């Protein structure tokens, strides 16, 4: 057996390498940097590496090759768009994370113990959250461009493990935060096992772990179809868990509620982009010719996800849980783009991911602002009358909710319209009907919150809107501006996606 040194295309891998380098520098700052200046230097390193990674990505945006890393990483238009989306969302989320008021002083301390009180008195800060964010972002960048199953798995773990930790860093309601981290970890490990099992079956089927090899085997049709079916099913379980599709959604309301709100926003937006990027690539590239085998199941999951997310969100009394169920419903809408299996489906999915991700970061950014003396207030009853006391904040939140509902003049409308028309073009009428119906149901609970904020009397219990920091203001302003602009002038972005989104095979 001969070994040859691998050839890597460093320019195309640069965005991921820069982010990983930034994360390593962040760990070194944690180790050697003076405590007083840690927060500032971490923030600088994080923002700088995200911006540098974006610049590196822009530099290679027109390249495409299957050989970025020996056939393990495929670099193409869709990959560039997804990576760019993840980097933009990560940057906006980091601005929210920079508001350290939401993070615990000492994550390892037992809630209510003397260590915790001591660390609160010392005014410690968990600045580790920055390198963790960068590690997660690096995994997310790799996830949608990986073109073999091993790389896919490594990327999945790389993005998941930091997120498990970050979910447990909430400053208030420590027990709930730790519970959510543990739940996320256990269920995530379980779903990773499913994914690995699927990898094993697909290898057994095609004698190859690359997407191209699996596709060739499906086209050749010589393998054992039972292995193929089992492989697709298990891989789908692992990936659908990450996007929170029903019936693999059980973790998401608890984790969304328990995690620090800035992390929830990052997780909800960026993980969804990365995971849907991977789903799109694997279904469009590897499984495209076995359409008849996975389509019925995926159609069913998409419909159930849309309807379940929309219906259950109605009964939620907590704003973060409500947004969690809304994100489950959005996962269903996004699955419609996967099922379409066409160029227009791909374009619509990428647009939807960008629009939804941006609006999600903004919405969770607003949630961080509504507080009382004990921290953030997420109980919806206490949000009533918010529009009378803080018209601006309530209006911005209402705008994001309208974007989620898909009301015209917001990016959500364009996203939903394009994804449903892609589904319609390819003849998935069932999806179309379920999508429109659940959109209508979803609009009910979004508008109910708006009514609650603007047409109910305020409750006098110390709930107030804090003055946001400059960075949080930037995030909320930029996200609402993008949501508005994409609602009014979507054409430039749509045309850009149309001209550049493709999967290299």
């Amino acid at each position, binding site marked *: 057996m001969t070994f040859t040194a691998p050839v890597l295309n460093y320019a195309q891998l640069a965005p991921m390498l820069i982010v990983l380098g930034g994360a390593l520098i962040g760990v070194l700052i944690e*180790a050697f940097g003076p405590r007083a200046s840690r927060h500032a230097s971490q923030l600088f390193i994080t923002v700088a590496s995200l911006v540098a990674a974006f610049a590196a990505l822009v530099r290679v945006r027109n390249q495409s090759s299957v050989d970025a890393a020996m056939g393990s990483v495929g670099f193409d238009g869709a990959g560039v768009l997804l990576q760019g989306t993840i980097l933009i969302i990560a940057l906006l989320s980091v601005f929210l994370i920079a508001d350290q008021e939401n993070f615990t002083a000492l994550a390892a301390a037992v809630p209510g113990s003397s260590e915790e009180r001591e660390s609160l008195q010392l005014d410690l800060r968990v600045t580790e959250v920055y390198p963790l964010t960068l590690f997660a972002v690096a995994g997310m960048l790799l996830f949608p461009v990986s073109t073999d199953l091993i790389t896919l798995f490594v990327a999945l773990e790389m993005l998941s493990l930091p997120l498990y930790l970050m979910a447990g860093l909430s400053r208030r309601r420590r027990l709930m935060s730790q519970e959510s981290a543990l739940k996320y970890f256990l269920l995530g490990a379980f779903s990773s096992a499913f994914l690995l099992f699927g990898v094993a079956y697909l290898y057994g089927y095609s004698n190859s772990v690359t997407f191209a090899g699996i596709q060739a085997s499906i086209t050749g049709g010589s393998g054992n179809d039972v292995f193929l079916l089992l492989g697709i099913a298990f891989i789908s379980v692992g990936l659908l868990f990450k996007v929170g599709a029903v019936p693999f959604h059980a973790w998401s309301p608890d984790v969304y509620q328990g995690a620090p709100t800035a992390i929830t926003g990052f997780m909800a937006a960026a993980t969804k982009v990365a995971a849907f990027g991977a789903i799109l690539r694997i279904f469009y590239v590897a499984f495209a010719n076995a359409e008849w085998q996975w389509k019925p199941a995926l159609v069913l999951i998409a419909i159930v996800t849309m309807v379940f997310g929309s219906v259950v969100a109605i009964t939620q009394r907590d704003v973060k849980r409500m947004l969690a169920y809304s994100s489950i419903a959005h996962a269903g809408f996004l699955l419609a783009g996967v099922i379409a299996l066409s160029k227009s489906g791909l374009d619509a999915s990428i647009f939807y991911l960008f629009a939804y991700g941006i609006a999600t970061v903004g919405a969770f950014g607003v949630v961080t602002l509504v507080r009382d003396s004990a921290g953030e207030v997420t109980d919806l009853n206490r949000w009533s009358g918010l529009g009378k006391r803080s018209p601006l904040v309530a209006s911005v939140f209402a705008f994001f909710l309208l974007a989620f509902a898909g009301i015209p003049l917001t990016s959500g409308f364009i996203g939903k319209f394009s994804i449903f028309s892609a589904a319609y073009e390819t003849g998935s009428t069932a999806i179309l009907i379920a999508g429109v119906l659940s959109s209508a149901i979803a609009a009910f609970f979004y508008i109910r919150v708006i009514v609650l904020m603007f047409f109910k009397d305020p409750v006098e219990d110390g709930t107030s809107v804090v003055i946001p920091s400059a960075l949080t203001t930037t995030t909320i302003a930029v996200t609402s501006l993008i949501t508005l602009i994409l609602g009014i002038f979507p054409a430039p972005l749509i045309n850009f996606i149309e001209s550049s989104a493709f999967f290299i095979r």
Partner: protein
Amino acid sequence: MSANPYIPILVIFAIGFGFAAFSVGIAAVTGPARYNRAKLEAYECGIEPSPQALQGGRFPVKYFLTAMLFIVFDIEIVFLYPWAVTFDKLGLFGLVEMAIFIGTVFVAYAYVWRRGGLEWD
């Protein structure tokens, strides 16, 4: 005629299960059943099993840190051995990559060291 190559494995499995079932069964039937305290205790490699960990059932977290640190270096060794075997074929590329890899491992080590992970008490 060629037999299925997996049949020997199946035979091994059958013998294994049969032996286990036979041993347990024959011991239950013929063995004397005289129990004492020592026999009923959990087998702990000669250490007296304590009722629970110190400090109210919580295991001290220092074991965990040591175990994590062990895993970091264990993984490093896992990669170092195949690299050492194919060193002449991978050449300078392999050397640089391995230096980067060891560098990242040492970043983790430096973090543990500076944050007091190596202090036992």
